[in-house]
């Protein structure tokens, strides 16, 4: 590997070790849990995300979960699959879920891998999402 790439790579490693590259943080508004999903997610981290969100949904008296994908760097088919699984599990628990903040670049890769998005609830902002959930339940 060239020296430059190698330096850069070490920089990335340092950043990852400090935990900057991945985080899911959340807050609750109007009985909706808003989960912010950031960075490049590996499959293991996606599994963690699933556990975290589903556990969260169980704990509180929630109406639904809004998954904020605005900070997501890349969404491949494995990550998409996990997000779908989260929405499916939430539905079985009687909770609504909405995907928020899909950036144009992510949208075009979703289109490119031919993901089936017809039955997903997509919202543009938190108000929009909260409103959708209040009406639907």
């Amino acid at each position, binding site marked *: *590997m*060239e020296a430059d*790439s190698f330096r*850069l*790579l070490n920089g*990335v*490693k340092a950043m*990852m070790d400090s935990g900057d*590259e*991945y985080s899911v943080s959340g807050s609750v508004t109007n009985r909706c849990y808003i989960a912010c999903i950031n*960075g*490049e*997610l*590996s*499959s*293991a*981290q996606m599994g963690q995300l699933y556990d975290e969100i589903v556990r969260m949904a169980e704990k509180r008296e929630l109406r639904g979960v809004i998954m904020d994908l605005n900070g997501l*760097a*890349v*969404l*491949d*088919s*494995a*990550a*998409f*699959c996990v997000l779908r699984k989260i929405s499916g599990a939430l539905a079985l628990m009687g909770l609504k879920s909405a995907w928020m903040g899909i950036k*144009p*670049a*992510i949208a*075009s*890769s979703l289109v*490119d*891998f*031919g*993901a089936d998005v017809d039955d997903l609830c997509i919202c543009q902002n938190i108000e929009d999402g909260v409103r959708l959930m209040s009406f639907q339940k």
Partner: protein
Amino acid sequence: MAKYCKNNRVLEASAKLLESSTFELNEENDQATAVFMTREIAKNAGFNLADEVMVATAVSELATNILRYASCGRIRVIVIQNGDGRTGIEIGAEDKGKGIRDLKLAMQDNYSTAESLGLGLPSVERIMDEFEIESEIGQGTRIRARRWL
């Protein structure tokens, strides 16, 4: 060794190598590094944000497959230039895993031996302008794909 090429066209041998980075894939974190670095490399090569994300998505798919089906391997991301001076990114993914029995099937939408979406390889073919995959049972799998600026 079985081979499949997008539009039945093999990759031209004449592309000039400008810069090359190799990412070894042994565990989950290696995938995130490869994806992050690919974005940097694509950005520096002049790709716009949407294209940068697409190329990184292709790397993510190939890395997922290597870790899932071959357990380890490597991905090389190369900045290249063709005879007309056009810049591109070439992704090379290789592993010494179990190989793919039927390439035609594996390249079809929704075909998966892992009961997952089966959209990885076909999406990489769609994202990239040029794409070829070679595989042999018990020997491994090699993919090379290019996207031009």
